[in-house]
């Protein structure tokens, strides 16, 4: 009898959990749409060698400037390279720059925010003035300046976009830390002799998590857009590597000949990826952080 009860309880628990998830997703259809597109792009980037129909670097002058058709779904460029394959491989560049630069911003910004908020005093004052100085630079201008100084390479684009993302994380985290620092459970933890690092990581950090998840999603959208802009200006990955921004820049020379498909593929790729991350971020904000919810 007891043997039959245990699986039944587990099954019920699982059912309740799935029902909760289903209810949550039903109430947030934007999360399903945004999440599905993001997941699609992640899969395309991960499995690019298997998904892309052609080698993105393979020159085939006999098929140059072919419009979209059954052989080349998104057409070919002036060197006969398959646009769809370049778009799929370009996803690797854009998403990796997006994710790595956001990780840089998240790691540095959150650490700075936690330290400034928890330690407070002159340390907080000094650190936050430095963050204010970083915020004083318009984001794209700062990213352009850093990349142009370090050299036009994908790693430098990641560093530049990562640095630009730091202030948002630092301010967000510091604000949340200040809000919970004086709460009773933190004071209690301090009173019983809990080490500062443990207080910060075990008791304060979980309070910041929801806001950070939302910020990560929204800043990934910005990072993809910024990477595309840097590549468009020639400050990202260098030719012949496939890159959405750079491929749009390259296609400009064929605009007068109405070879629109050369820019349509990478342009729509940037749009769908950024749109999906924004959509997902907005939905997550509404679901996870009601305080940040817009009145809209």
């Amino acid at each position, binding site marked *: 009898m007891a043997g039959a009860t245990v699986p039944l309880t587990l099954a019920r628990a699982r059912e309740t959990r799935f029902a909760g998830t289903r209810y949550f997703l039903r109430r947030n259809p934007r999360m399903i749409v945004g999440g599905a597109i993001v997941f699609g792009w992640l899969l395309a980037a991960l499995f690019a060698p298997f998904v892309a129909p052609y080698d993105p670097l393979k020159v085939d002058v006999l098929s140059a400037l072919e419009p979209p058709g059954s052989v080349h779904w998104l057409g070919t460029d002036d060197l006969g390279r398959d646009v769809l394959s370049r778009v799929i491989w370009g996803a690797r560049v854009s998403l990796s720059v997006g994710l790595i630069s956001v990780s840089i911003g998240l790691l540095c910004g959150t650490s700075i925010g936690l330290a400034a908020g928890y330690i407070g005093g002159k340390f907080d004052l000094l650190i936050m003035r430095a963050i204010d100085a970083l915020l*004083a630079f318009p984001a794209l*201008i700062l990213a352009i*300046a850093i990349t142009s100084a370090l*050299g036009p390479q994908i790693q430098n684009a990641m560093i530049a976009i990562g640095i630009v993302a730091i202030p948002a994380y630092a301010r967000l985290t510091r604000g949340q830390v200040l809000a919970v620092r004086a709460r009773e459970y933190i004071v209690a933890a301090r009173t019983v002799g809990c080490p500062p690092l443990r207080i910060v990581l075990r008791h304060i950090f979980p309070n910041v998590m929801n806001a950070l998840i939302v910020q990560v999603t929204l800043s990934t959208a910005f990072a993809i857009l910024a990477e595309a802009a840097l590549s468009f200006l020639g400050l990202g990955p260098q030719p012949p590597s496939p890159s959405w921004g750079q491929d749009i820049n390259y296609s400009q020379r064929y605009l007068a000949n109405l070879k*629109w498909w050369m820019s349509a593929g990478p*342009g729509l790729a940037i749009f769908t990826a950024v749109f999906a991350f924004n959509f997902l971020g907005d939905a997550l904000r509404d679901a996870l952080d009601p305080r940040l919810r817009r009145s809209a």
Partner: protein
Amino acid sequence: MIGYILRRLLLMVPVAFLVTVGVFALARLSPVDPVLVFAGEERDPAALAAIRQDLGLDQPPPVQYVAWLSHAMQGDLGRSFQNKQRVSEAILERLPATFELGLAALLISVTLALVIGIVSAVKRNSVVDLVSTSVTLMGVSFPSFFLGIVLILLFAYVIPGRIFPPGGYVPITQDVGENLRRLVLPAVTLATASLALNLRQVRSSLLDVFGQEYVRTARAKGLRESAVIIRHALKNALIPVVTLIGIQIGAIIEGAVITETIFSWPGVGRLAVQAIPSHDYPVVQGVVLVSALSFMASTLLVDVLYAWLDPRISYEAATA
């Protein structure tokens, strides 16, 4: 009020100092020796040493920074490595074109945001609202350089008669009509991203205000809906919009970088982009400094304007 402004100015000093340190350090990050760039074809060691001394690059970095800062404070941002023109002069020459583009874009963006935002908020959950909120999200996600290319393709090549040229600039003093014709596509491109932000702000501010008691009171008094919206709701709802617009004015140079490049618009943003491949760092440094300082100045102006527009904002609290 004056005390508040002075306090805000004082708070800006350390930030401005750190900004100048950042701009100075950025130029020094480059692995390329600026002397070699400045010298062009010249490779004679004696000549290179003379140039290094001339540019003050033989001094330790802190000394170089003090010299650069004191010159910058007098409006001297150095000379371009490419054409030896004064950087401040090059920026000043191009500022009118950038401002013309930026202000035209802002005008388009604010006008459309106000009209669509009000209709969208008043007729919440209607078709107009649904379309406008979707357009908002799409506008934020649409890369401006792709939009620019789509517009060029459509208006310069697909639609016969070339209504709007694909690029270039004619000064307004030379030919007003041609200037405006060339302004349309870049201004619309630049306006799209900020339109999305402004529209979202107008709509959500109005929806916030519609829930306030004084709006209910105005309606209860029997005022016409247009009077409630224009005289009561809009006046307060526009305060956050003013903030957003102020910040956008400060960020005109940033917004113009990509648009000026696509449309060959001879502004400050394009100046910086053209300076990058030739490692012309005094120009890049100058543009970055000017854009950061104008961004800071606009933030200050917005704060002051905000405090002036909304008397509920305490000057003491705002500086704390």
